[in-house]
């Protein structure tokens, strides 16, 4: 990873600290923490995310996904979409993303480049 000049690193840390103090990040971190202390909810969330990523990768690779696995995905999705702790975390994440997009737009407008595209790992 590239070493940043001190002034740049401080400016980046200041933005990060400001974001962390924001209502959007605090709400998300609190919702995620509540989810993680509930072993059943956390296991359900992890199982759904793992299955989703696996199916997505295989679909993108051109595989015809077996109906049995799709049914498992739909059943898990229904559980996830109705679990109060996961719903609350996902709502908080949605608000966080909208807020981060607004802040990133401030950077992009001033730099005249799309900051999230440039900064995101491939």
């Amino acid at each position, binding site marked *: 990873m590239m070493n940043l000049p001190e002034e740049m690193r401080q400016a980046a840390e200041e933005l990060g600290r400001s974001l962390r103090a*924001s*209502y959007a990040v605090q709400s998300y971190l609190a919702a995620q923490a509540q989810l993680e202390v509930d072993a059943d909810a956390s296991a359900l969330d992890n199982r759904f995310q793992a299955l989703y990523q696996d199916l997505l990768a295989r679909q993108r690779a051109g595989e015809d996904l077996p109906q049995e696995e799709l049914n498992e995905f739909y059943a898990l999705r229904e559980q996830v979409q109705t679990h109060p702790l996961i719903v609350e975390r996902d709502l908080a994440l949605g608000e966080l993303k909208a807020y981060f997009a607004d802040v990133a737009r401030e950077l992009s407008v001033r730099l005249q480049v799309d900051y999230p595209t440039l900064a*995101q790992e491939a």
Partner: protein
Amino acid sequence: MYGQTEATVAQPTTKAAVRESARSLAEAIKDMPEFQALQEAARAINHDEKVQDLLRQMQSHQSAFRLGQGDRADHVAALKKLRSELDGQAAVQAYQQAELAVRTLCRAVDRVVSDAAGVDFAANAKRSCCG
């Protein structure tokens, strides 16, 4: 913990502070040699007659392709040839190198922002096609 009163009172101040921090960071990035090199490379491309001519030809083929004018395979072949010629131009190669350097810079910046925020910043700031 995060009741309505706290949200409505605290959020505007925090938002203003965050925007100010974002503006300061943007100014710091603009001062970096990597970013200035990218701007210079973009200016060079805009003033390079050969590059602009190749881009115009590509736009013409893309437009004809979309409108269904002429043989689609001919347009695809022409676009491939033009793209290859474009990539061989010194100004384009200089731009691509400058962009790579700015990507590396922005990724390092974003790592610091994300670590301090406690959440990945750029990855969550990207607008998805589905809202």
